[in-house]
């Protein structure tokens, strides 16, 4: 039974990772980051249940808080950039070059 969750967690993580690499707009990239975090959280809870140890579940609580902070900051940075450039596509905002 628990192996289903394992595959689900792996699927979510892979989906998120691929999304962060291949997506071109910043909002989607942030969402994919959250997807990655969700996958990992599920994985940790799963392991924590199967081993019966609670300390890793604590880690998940911290992860939820931290990833919420990360997204908040990511969004505010996107807004800061959008004010200057009126775009959220990664291809259009490359200014720093070699």
């Amino acid at each position: 039974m628990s192996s289903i969750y394992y595959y689900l967690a792996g699927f979510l993580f892979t989906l998120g990772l691929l999304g962060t690499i291949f997506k071109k707009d910043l909002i989607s990239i942030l969402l994919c980051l959250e997807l990655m975090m969700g996958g990992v959280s599920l994985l940790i809870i799963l392991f924590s249940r199967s081993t019966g140890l609670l300390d890793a579940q604590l880690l998940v609580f911290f992860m939820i808080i931290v990833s919420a902070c990360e997204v908040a900051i990511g969004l505010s940075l996107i807004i800061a950039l959008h004010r200057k450039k009126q775009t959220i596509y990664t291809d259009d905002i490359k200014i720093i070059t070699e």
Partner: protein
Amino acid sequence: MHLNYLANIGRYIPEVILVLLMVGLIILEATYKEDEKNRKYIFIATLVGLVATLGALIANMSGKAEAIFSNSIIIDQFSTLIKMVMVLGTLAAIYLSRFSKDIYESLKTEFAIMAVGILIGGFLLASANNMLTFYLGIETLSILSYVMAALKKNDQRSSEAGLKYALYGGISAGLMLFGMSHIFGVLGTIQFAGVAKMIPTLTSAQLAILMPSFVLLFAGIGYKIASVPFHMWSPDVYEGSPTPVTTFFAIVPKLAGIAALIRITAVFFVVDSPMKIGWIGLLIVISALTMTVGNVTAIGQKSVKRMLAYSSISHAGIMLAGIVVINDVGIRSVVFYGITYLFMTLVAFYITSIVQDKYGNDHFDRFSGLIYRYPFMAVMMAVVMFSLTGLPPLAGFVAKYNIISSLINSKNYALAIVLGLNSVVSAYYYLKIVRLMTLKPQESNEEIEGFGFLNQMVIVSMTVPVFVLGIFWETIMNLAAGAKLFIQ
């Protein structure tokens, strides 16, 4: 069951002071009007707070090493010494931010607040003893760094730097957690000591899962210390952020990451095991790559800040080479390298920042003929450049010599040769600045306001250790040798 949570607070005073300082600064900031120019009480408060932290750390240094807060944080000589170096770096960066024009006047308090916050994260990371504190340390460092990189909010490049940093950081944190979750899943503990106990007795099936997991764990730290292949963000962020921020990034997060890596390596891989061979092999390859890529890419740069960014990547590679030798000698040489790296980087960034404030950019040409206008400053810059290259009798030479000798003692000849060759490559771009300053005619006769008497004195006082550590290095070496890791 009743736990006394505050039983160990006595050993945790430096961090408590920093937290109080951060909160205090936020409250103090609110008492000023928005367009108030001279916020000197904030500067004074930061100074006092950081010096108090330094004092508390010195007091901690003499106490005995112990694990506090249910074994999740370790206070030992090693972490305390690294923390002292980080506090000094923060002090210098905050002083630089006071007169730098690269940070808006109204945001200087914010810089101080975030610098203190990042310092708290660095403290947590340097003394982390389980995966939870380790992760929290990395994230406290990262989240504030993202904002700090984007501090110049009207500048597109700064915002882009912050965003790039945030996205790379998020991905690497995700990878690291994925690795951590598997380590927990296989070994059933998040305590470093618990993991270390299991590592020599792994079956081959467990090894097959754990080897990739440890590589992913390295991704999290490798990103913080900007080692190849996780270095892509570093030059862009260093170039895009304001110069005081770059100075800060080159020191505090990097040293905190190195400290965490030393602790992980020294705790997990004491006994010989297949895991240890894999991890050391990984470190050797990454160290060689980091040095080479950093140095070779630095050659073609036009901006001094970007050049210094690549040079700091290569210095991270050299420190990694010291970590490959996980014994007392290796750790001692890395700590010594960290101390010298602090002073060398600070002087180089101070002078670059002042020149950049005057001319609005930091191309190599802005340095031409500096010796005819500010002979003292040009000599200091030259000294630091020689030291970064690793020429005797300066501190950089002793630091590199120690790492190479510990590599040779442990029979890592190939890495020692790569390190030696890299020093030759780095001479090209470091000495390019010296050549420009001395042999080229000056561009203009303008006065550079940043080189006032006080600032020149500060720069000189930071260059003195580069001389002193190069000649009388035994004292600091003994101090670094006393920085023992406490493993529990």
